[in-house]
C-alpha cells in the first residue's frame, strides 16, 4: 500500500463532509493527480478539493478525462482517476471507460449523482450511470451515505488494481457529499467474500507444460499485454535466453519484450509481419503468455496454428478456451509462472527452427517500406521510422487508431515496457492526445510523442487547450493523409475503391497549434523530418507537427478480417532498389 501522503493531516475520527472524505480516501490511495470536469452534482467534491494535495487537470471533455486517467495508468502502472458530474458528465466518460475495460486498465471514476431523494425521478441531469456502465466496468458502486464513501473508494481501488485490472466507477449522490460523518479509515487487508483474484498455477499443469516444451521442435512464445502488467519482462528474457524460443508480440505486448532482442520476431496478427504469422502457422508449440487470442491476432480460427500444441498462461480463467482451444491452461500471474517453469526447461540452441524463420524473414525484408526509396514522397512509415531514429527509440509513444497506429507498431521499435500506449481492444479514435497528456503526468521525465491521424486528432483536439493551460509538453505528430486512412484502405481493398465518407477536410493544424499559443510545424518532405523532430524535442511546450504524407498509402502486410493467418496481402515488391536513402546514409538501425 502507498504510505499516506505526508502533506495529509490526520483527520481520522473527526467529523468531515462526504466531499472531504472523497479526497481523504483518494489521497490515502496514493492519488496525486486526477482528471475531470465539474458540474452541479459533483460541486461539493470540487469545493473540498482545494484542501487536499491533489492536482486536478481540467479537461475539455469528460472523454478526455477518462482517456487521461487511462494514459496515466498505462504509463505508470498505478490506478488512474477521473471525476465528472452526473448525467452528461458521466455518460461522456463512457468511451474512455470502455477503452480501459477492454485493455484491462486500472482506473477509478468518480461521478456525482443527483441527491438520493431524487433518484428515479428523472431529475435534472439524472442518468443511471451504474446501470449504464455495468457491462463496461469491472465493478461499480452507487453511494448514498457519507459513511459508505471511504470504504467504497478503498474497495474500488483494490478491485481496480488487483487480479486482471479494470475500471471501477463510484457514483456518489450529492447529499452524501454534503452530509457529514465521523471519518474512519482502515489499512487492513481487504477481503471480499465473492472476489478472489489470486490464482496460483496447478503443479500438474506446470509439469505438462514442461513436457510439451521439452518435446517441441518449433516452439514460439507469445508476449501479450499481461507481460507488461505483471512486470514480467525480465522473466521473459531469462526464459527466452535459456530456451532460445522465438517471441511474437501482440500489439499491446510491444515493449514487454525488447524489440531489438535477437529472439524477438515482431508483431503478430492482422498487420503483423509475414514471417511472424508464418512461423505461428508452422509452429508445433505455442506458449501464449498474457494474451487472449483476439480475433485480430488469430484470423480464421479453423485454420489457426493447427499443428501447434498450446499452453496458455493467463490470469483470467474466463479467457481459457474462449477463442482457441488450448492443451495446457495455466491460470496465474505470467511472471510467476515463467519463473516457475524456468528451472525445469532445457537449454537449447534451436538453430534449425530459427534458421527457417530467418529464411522466410529475408524474403519479406526486401519488401519492407523502411528499406524503400522515398522517391520524393513523404511516406507515413518513413516518418514514423525517422521519429524512432531521432528519438533514439526512447520516447513514450501514444498512438491513436488507424493506419498510423499499425505503422507505429511496425516501425517504432519499443525496447521498454509502458513506452507504447495504444487502444488495442476497443480501437478508440481520439484516444491518443488525452492519453498522451495523462502519460506525461505519470512520466514527466519522458519525451511523450502522440502519433495520430488527421481524423482521430480532430476527435479530441480540444485537449490541446488543456496542454496549454497546464503548461505541459507533448509532441503531437499528425500523420495527415487527408483521409480516414484505415477505412479508406478497407474501401480500396474490399469495397471496390468507393471512398464513401472517408475524404477528410481538416483545418490548418499549424494555425490550430498557434491559436493555442503552441508551436506548429508543417512537414512535406522527408528531408524536413529530422529537423522537425529535433525542434519539437527542443521546444518548450506542446508542439504539433503536421506531416503531410502520401494520401493513398496502405498498411502491409494484411490479413483480411476472418481470413487465414497465412493468407496475407503482401507488401508490393520493391521498386527501384538502388536509391535507398536509408541505406545510402547508413542511418538505419
Amino acid at each position, binding site marked *: 500500500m502507498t504510505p499516506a501522503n505526508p502533506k495529509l493531516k490526520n483527520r481520522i475520527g473527526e467529523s468531515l463532509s462526504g466531499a472531504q472524505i472523497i479526497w481523504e480516501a483518494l489521497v490515502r490511495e496514493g492519488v496525486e493527480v486526477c482528471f475531470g470536469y465539474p458540474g452541479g452534482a459533483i460541486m461539493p467534491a470540487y469545493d473540498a478539493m482545494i484542501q487536499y494535495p491533489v492536482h486536478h487537470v481540467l479537461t475539455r471533455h469528460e472523454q478526455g478525462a477518462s482517456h487521461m486517467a487511462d494514459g496515466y495508468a498505462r504509463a505508470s502502472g498505478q490506478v488512474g482517476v477521473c471525476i465528472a458530474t452526473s448525467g452528461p458528465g458521466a455518460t461522456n466518460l463512457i468511451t474512455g471507460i470502455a477503452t480501459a475495460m477492454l485493455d484491462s486498465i486500472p482506473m477509478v471514476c468518480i461521478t456525482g449523482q443527483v441527491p438520493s431523494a431524487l433518484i428515479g425521478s428523472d431529475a435534472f441531469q439524472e442518468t443511471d450511470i451504474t*446501470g449504464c456502465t*455495468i457491462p463496461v466496468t469491472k465493478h461499480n458502486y*452507487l453511494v448514498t451515505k457519507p459513511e459508505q464513501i471511504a470504504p467504497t473508494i478503498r474497495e474500488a481501488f483494490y478491485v481496480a488494481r488487483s487480479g486482471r485490472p479494470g475500471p471501477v466507477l463510484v457514483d456518489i449522490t450529492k447529499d452524501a457529499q454534503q452530509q457529514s460523518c465521523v471519518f474512519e479509515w482502515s489499512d487492513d487487508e481487504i477481503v471480499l467474500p465473492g472476489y478472489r483474484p489470486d490464482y496460483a498455477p496447478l503443479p500438474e499443469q506446470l509439469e*505438462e507444460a514442461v513436457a510439451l516444451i521439452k518435446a517441441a521442435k518449433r516452439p514460439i512464445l507469445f508476449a501479450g499485454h499481461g507481460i507488461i502488467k505483471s512486470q514480467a519482462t525480465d522473466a521473459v528474457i531469462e526464459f527466452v535466453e535459456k530456451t532460445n524460443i522465438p517471441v511474437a508480440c501482440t500489439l499491446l505486448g510491444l515493449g514487454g519484450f525488447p524489440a531489438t532482442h535477437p529472439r524477438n520476431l515482431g508483431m503478430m496478427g492482422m498487420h503483423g509481419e509475414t514471417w511472424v504469422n508464418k512461423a505461428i502457422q508452422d509452429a508445433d508449440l505455442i506458449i501464449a503468455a498474457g494474451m487472449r487470442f483476439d480475433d485480430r491476432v488469430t484470423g480464421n480460427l479453423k485454420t489457426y496454428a493447427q499443428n501447434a500444441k498450446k499452453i496458455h498462461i493467463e490470469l483470467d*480463467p474466463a479467457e481459457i*478456451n474462449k477463442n482457441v*482451444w488450448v*492443451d*495446457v491452461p495455466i491460470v496465474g500471474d505470467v511472471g510467476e509462472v515463467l519463473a516457475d517453469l524456468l528451472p525445469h526447461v532445457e537449454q537449447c540452441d534451436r538453430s534449425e527452427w530459427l534458421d527457417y524463420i530467418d529464411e522466410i524473414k529475408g524474403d519479406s525484408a526486401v519488401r519492407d517500406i523502411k528499406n524503400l526509396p522515398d522517391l520524393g514522397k513523404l511516406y507515413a512509415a518513413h516518418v514514423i521510422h525517422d521519429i524512432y531514429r531521432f528519438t533514439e527509440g526512447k520516447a513514450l509513444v501514444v498512438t491513436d487508431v488507424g493506419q498510423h497506429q499499425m505503422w507505429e507498431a511496425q516501425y517504432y521499435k519499443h525496447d521498454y515496457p509502458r513506452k507504447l500506449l495504444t487502444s488495442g481492444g476497443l480501437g478508440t479514435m481520439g484516444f491518443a492526445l488525452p492519453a498522451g497528456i495523462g502519460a506525461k503526468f505519470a512520466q514527466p521525465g519522458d519525451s511523450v510523442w502522440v502519433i495520430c491521424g488527421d481524423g482521430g486528432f480532430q476527435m479530441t483536439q480540444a485537449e490541446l487547450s488543456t496542454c496549454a493551460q497546464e503548461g505541459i509538453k507533448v509532441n503531437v505528430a499528425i500523420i495527415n493523409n487527408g483521409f480516414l486512412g484505415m477505412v479508406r484502405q478497407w474501401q480500396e481493398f474490399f469495397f471496390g475503391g468507393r471512398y464513401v465518407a472517408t475524404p477528410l477536410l481538416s483545418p490548418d493544424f499549424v494555425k490550430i497549434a498557434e491559436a493555442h499559443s503552441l508551436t506548429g510545424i508543417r512537414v512535406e518532405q522527408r528531408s524536413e523530418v529530422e529537423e522537425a523532430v529535433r525542434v519539437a524535442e527542443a521546444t518548450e511546450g506542446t508542439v504539433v507537427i503536421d506531416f503531410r504524407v502520401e494520401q493513398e498509402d496502405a498498411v502491409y502486410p494484411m490479413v483480411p478480417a476472418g481470413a487465414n493467418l497465412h493468407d496475407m496481402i503482401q507488401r508490393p515488391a520493391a521498386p527501384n532498389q538502388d536509391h535507398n536513402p536509408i541505406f545510402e546514409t547508413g542511418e538505419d538501425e
Partner: protein
Amino acid sequence: MTRSVKRTFAVFVEDKPGVLNRVASLFRRRSYNIDSLNVGTTHEPGVSRMTIVCDADTDTARRIEANLYKMVNVLWVDDITHKQTIDRVLALIKVNCDRDQRDEVLKICEVFRARAIDMSPDRITIEITGARDKVEGLVSVLKPFGILELVQTGTVAMTRGVEKHDLAHPTVPASRNDAA
C-alpha cells in the same frame, strides 16, 4: 467440443441492490441464452440463491462459471447439471371446467399430484409442483379443456447431498487429455 445441453447452475450471490441486473447483464452480453432464472433469499443472512437454467456445452458452461466468479458480488457457483438434484417448478393453471367436467379434471390432478386450489361454476385453478416435464405433462393434458391463464416459476434446484462451499478455484480448467 461437447454438445449443448440444458445446464443448471446454483449461484450464491450477495443480497445487494442491482446484483440480479449484473448477473442478467452478463448472460445477455455474452449471448448465453437463459431458459429460466430464479432468485430468492437463503437461510444465511445477506446471501441470495439463484437457479439459472441455460443451454451450454461443457466449455461454455465452464466459462459461464468463470465469468460469474469474476463478479464481485458472486460468492459461489455450482454447476449441478450432472449432480443428483431435486428440481422443481411451480405452476398455477386456470382452466375452463363446467360441472360435468369437474370429476375428470380432478382425477387428472390426482394422477399428477396437483391440487385444485380455487373453483367457480365454470372454471378451476390448479397448483402443481414438480419437475418441469411433469408440469408440461399436466399442461398438455389440460389443454383440451381450454387454459385461461397459466403462470409458472422457473426451476429451483438443490443437490441431494450436502455441498461444501469451499473457496478453492473451481473454474481453473483442466488440461486436454491428449496433452503431454
